[in-house]
């Protein structure tokens, strides 16, 4: 009973979702133009060669059998092979994942650090100039495609103002990567006290993280605004005013503390947006993460990485939302016993 039971129940509920996701990824191969054997055999293969290739790849077997082989491979951690790099996709992934995570976390932090105060300000100054400015900024963030925002940022901050570095990966020219601990350059260089690398990695991270963060800041701000508006009208906030609590305490203590609970739930969705948005932003900034990897694979019809990227994002999405539910349970005393 209690927390452990809740955890087990939630994990069990995630299983059908994961099964569905693996099915979709499996069929993705068939939805891509040209079959995988054709891509691998190349344009000049003879029909005999092609048939042999199909047999070798198991494409001549029944669909359920093919799915069985695919799924059991997944369970062993076998994500297939990339025909572009000739290496197992799982290896490429492990190598590129830290870059993606670093970018995602940085964007999430930007979205939260700007989005939450923006939402609070809009709610407190409802229907005033501040609220309208907040809304325009938010809508712009959602409406502009992130490759476009990214390009504008590069144009303005790198080309025109020259305050940002060239959009060429995680480190400036001539800077060596820090010793590998977590794979996140900012964290690793901090841990090893490598200030030069720290500065360079933060510098490089700045624009892509701002681009990605800008695209999801609006949903965060909007959620904070609407829950804050509701909570500012609640009986307990009125009681807090009546008790003579200072404005700061009422807004940031009594009200915001309650407003953050529903906000936690959308962070899972925001994280999903970020993972998907990575693909585009990583391409713009030549960021060596898995999103960039998947986009490159898409252009060369390399099905292994694409399949794996979709699968990975979906699994991560499920995992993050599970985590969010658990955190939600901890943040709200009313469902703590869940």
């Amino acid at each position: 009973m209690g927390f452990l039971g809740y955890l087990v129940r939630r994990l069990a509920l995630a299983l059908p979702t994961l099964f569905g996701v693996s099915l979709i990824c499996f069929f993705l191969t068939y939805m891509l133009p040209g079959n995988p054997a054709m891509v691998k055999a190349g344009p000049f293969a003879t029909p005999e060669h092609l048939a042999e290739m199909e047999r070798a790849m198991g494409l001549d077997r029944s669909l359920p059998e093919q799915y069985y082989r695919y799924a059991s491979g997944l369970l062993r951690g076998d994500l297939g092979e990339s025909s572009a790099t000739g290496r197992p996709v799982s290896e490429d992934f492990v190598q590129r994942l830290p870059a993606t995570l670093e970018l995602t976390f940085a964007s999430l932090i930007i979205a939260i650090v700007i989005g939450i105060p923006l939402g609070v300000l809009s709610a407190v100054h409802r229907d005033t100039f501040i609220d309208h400015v907040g809304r325009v900024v938010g809508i712009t963030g959602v409406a502009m495609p992130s490759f476009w925002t990214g390009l504008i940022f590069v144009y303005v901050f790198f080309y025109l103002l020259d305050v940002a570095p060239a959009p060429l990966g995680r480190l400036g020219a001539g800077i060596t990567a820090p010793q590998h601990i977590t794979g996140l350059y900012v964290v690793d260089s901090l841990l090893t006290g490598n200030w030069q690398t720290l500065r360079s990695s933060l510098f490089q991270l700045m624009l892509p993280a701002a681009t990605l963060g800008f695209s999801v800041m609006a949903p965060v701000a909007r959620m904070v605004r609407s829950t804050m508006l509701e909570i500012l009208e609640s009986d307990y906030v009125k009681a807090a005013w009546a008790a003579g609590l200072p404005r700061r305490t009422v807004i940031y203590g009594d009200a915001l503390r309650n407003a953050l609970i529903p906000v936690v739930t959308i962070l899972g969705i925001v994280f999903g947006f970020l993972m998907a948005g990575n693909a585009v932003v990583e391409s713009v900034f030549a960021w060596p993460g898995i999103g960039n990897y998947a986009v490159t694979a898409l252009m060369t019809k390399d099905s292994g990485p694409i399949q794996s990227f979709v699968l990975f994002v979906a699994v991560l999405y499920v995992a993050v939302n599970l985590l969010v539910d658990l955190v939600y349970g901890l943040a709200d005393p009313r469902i703590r016993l869940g």
Partner: protein
Amino acid sequence: MSDLLEIADLTVSFDSDAGEIQAVDHISLTIRAGEVVGLVGESGSGKSVTAFAILRLIRRPGRVKSGTIRFNGVDLGTLSEEEMRQIRGAKIALISQSPRTALNPVITVGRQIARLFELHGGLSARDAHRRMLEMLSLVRIPDPAKRAGQYAHQLSGGMCQRVMIAMALATSPQLLIADEPTTGLDVSIAARILDLLRELGAKTGAAILLITHDLGVVAETADRVVVMHAGQVVESAPVRTLFHQPAHPYTRALVRSIPRVDRTVTMEPIPGAVPSLLDPPPGCRYAERCGWVSERCRIARPPLTRVVADHEVACYGFEERRDAAG
């Protein structure tokens, strides 16, 4: 007894898409130090709005259109926001209408009380904690140390109301506004909450403005009663006078509508419905429900006039009948 709170000519309205809702219309009332005053009226008659106006907490779309509120002789309207904040909770405390939702769901009840000692009493966290536990025992919450660490949803309605009372009395206010403190509680718990309020009020010397829609509640608790109807004060009298010689036709109807065991006739409901407060016509808002109505009632609002010392009524019909009799 000197006047602690003096409301003169207070008008509060709310802007809405349909027009102006005149929730409180030129009301005056006085509360003396240590006195328990009942503010009675049907739901929607402007009682809560009056309470919030006293604390200067009317916010958009509402606004105070006229009137002054003096507390200890000081016009609250002239104070800065910071000066007013130091009066709220410390000198004038509010127990709001719904005990459960008036407590913050994510802050322990103990913390909600203790922080008032820190804020208004300047106590250290440790002393505030100790005083908070004393306060919980004072309102007779069993096992205060355990309850202090709990959240509102873990307490019963009666228990939440006791916590609210503890919060309100924590800083020894001179005036305690209790807005329908017993709604939603069952009869025996309600009676105990009222006893507790009266007892603690007497002990601390706090005056109490007891807001209720139930005349039965004030009968046993209040010294004096002010009756409101649709945003207007229609009568004000000592509690005995009000029950035995009600002057205003609305008060008479209210008194008749109280269920009583010693009376064989069944209670009579008050005829008609509360009039709309949206752009109401001038004059007495009880006119459409009143058996004494005459033409002038619809033209001008009858002023509160003295019947005998301490008994005031706002009714042309009553004046005419008294003049005719005497």
